[in-house]
């Protein structure tokens, strides 16, 4: 058992990495579950790219500075989210096309800005994160974002579920439809910024979507999916960090690959809607 406990017991950087990853597991996975249920799984990916120019501007202004890059990333993400939502609601363009347009503009801007200054090493930092080098400020930020996310989701749970399941009904009984949509996109942006501190812009989406996708094969209720997804993310975090420690692998991809492995196992063996249920059906019932 020592290989399981010792790395976390002996090294502060592993404890910090674990805490950071658990905070992301709690905050990002419920957001991922709702993205999945709203058929917006790829929205997270697009948003992650949209955040890049903001982080790059922060980086140009203040170097590898947590505060500046966070504020820049959140600002860029929110601008893209609001423009996307506004175009989808007020013009003939649908949300997916509108998001694609804005995130591509944003991504091009980000690449341009990063290459203006910045060496390749810095770019690797932004793309792949620094989970083994989280300082106090970064940890505080990750925990704060997880807390804000969980409280916000608990508060708007009913309108959010309704906006996902029957948006037209929500519009007929209240004015929540618009606000809850934008609030949710705000949470997506916040959690991607949190994730990109630890895992990088490209990997941050993984911890959001993969556990949610895995959970779909285990649970048939929203509550069940939220719980399973958080557990999958937490197990992936521990497994990825251990693999990274023992085998000398980069930690971000190791964590995401652990989540990917759990996803593939769920896809094959999960009890609900999996390949096993499709190809090895159990005997049918009487009624």
């Amino acid at each position, binding site marked *: 058992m020592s290989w399981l406990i010792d790395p976390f017991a002996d090294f502060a950087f592993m404890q910090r990495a674990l805490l950071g990853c658990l905070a992301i597991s709690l905050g990002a996975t419920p957001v991922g579950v709702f993205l999945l249920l709203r058929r917006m799984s790829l929205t997270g990916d697009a948003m992650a790219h949209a955040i890049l120019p903001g982080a790059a501007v922060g980086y140009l202004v203040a170097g590898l500075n947590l505060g500046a890059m966070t504020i820049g990333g959140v600002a860029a993400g929110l601008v893209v989210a609001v423009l996307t939502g506004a175009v989808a609601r007020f013009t003939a363009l649908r949300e997916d096309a509108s998001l694609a347009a804005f995130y591509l503009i944003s991504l091009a801007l980000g690449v341009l800005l990063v290459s203006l200054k910045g060496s390749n090493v810095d770019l690797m930092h932004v793309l792949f994160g620094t989970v083994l080098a989280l300082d106090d400020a970064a940890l505080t930020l990750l925990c704060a974002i997880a807390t804000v996310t969980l409280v916000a989701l608990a*508060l708007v749970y*009913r309108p959010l579920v309704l906006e996902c399941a*029957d948006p037209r009904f929500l519009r007929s*009984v209240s004015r929540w439809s618009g606000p809850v949509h934008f609030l949710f996109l705000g949470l997506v942006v916040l959690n991607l910024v949190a994730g990109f501190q630890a895992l990088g812009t490209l990997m941050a989406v993984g911890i959001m979507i993969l556990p949610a996708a895995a959970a779909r094969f285990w649970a048939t209720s929203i509550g069940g999916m939220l719980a399973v997804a958080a557990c999958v993310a937490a197990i992936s975090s521990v497994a990825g960090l251990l693999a990274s420690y023992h085998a000398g692998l980069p930690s971000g991809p190791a964590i995401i690959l652990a989540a990917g492995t759990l996803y593939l196992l769920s896809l094959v063996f999960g009890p609900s809607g999996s390949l096993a249920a499709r190809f090895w059906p159990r005997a049918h019932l009487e009624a």
Partner: protein
Amino acid sequence: MALRVRDLTLGYDRHPAVHHLDLELAEGSLTAIVGPNGAGKSTFLKGVMGELPPLEGKIERGAARVAYLPQLSEVDRSFPLSVKAFVAMGLWHRTGAFGGLSRADLSRVGEALAAVGLTGFERRPISALSGGQVQRVMFARLLLQDADLILLDEPFTALDAKTAADLLAVVQRWHGEGRTVLAVLHDIEAVRRHFPETLLLAREKVAHGATDTVLTAENLFRARQMSEAFDDDANVCARPAEQPAKRGAA
């Protein structure tokens, strides 16, 4: 007055789908909207719900609470919700966004499910329901909405006779409770039997009043004559809007 519509024009891309409609619905009336496809029936209900802003004219809703069953609902039936949780959404006016469901609320949900013949379906996921069962669930939610004005867009289309009869009984119960019901229907015989009033619509109002006087052979013929397609080269409508002076004097 549950609903008053004055000189209402609704449309898409400036083409009118409902053209200069005047209508008054008395409180507690049970009215069918009848007309050919493309006559503006669904558009009219959307307009009443505020989903589509009028191109011209006014809609005044006297009713405090309005419930609406669209023809093409946007319900995501793959969403992991139980029948009970779905139907309980109808209690939004009691719970709001944040309030919890009381024990009394839960028994209301049970009563609504019983009223549409779905007792025992509480825990069933909505993804496991048949088309007819989904419509029963939608009616259970409408029941809980406790609305004064209820708009139904083709509520009985594609249902078997038993389901249609059960849900028609719910509509008649609403009528008995003094609620105003406005329903788009295609089954003329059912309208004659069960709906005291009818609005015959074919982009413009053909007739409105007691069902016997509206659904005459002549009126139905006129409704069929009105063209369905928009004219791409149509001129701007020159029909004068209601005079401001006249409105001031009234």
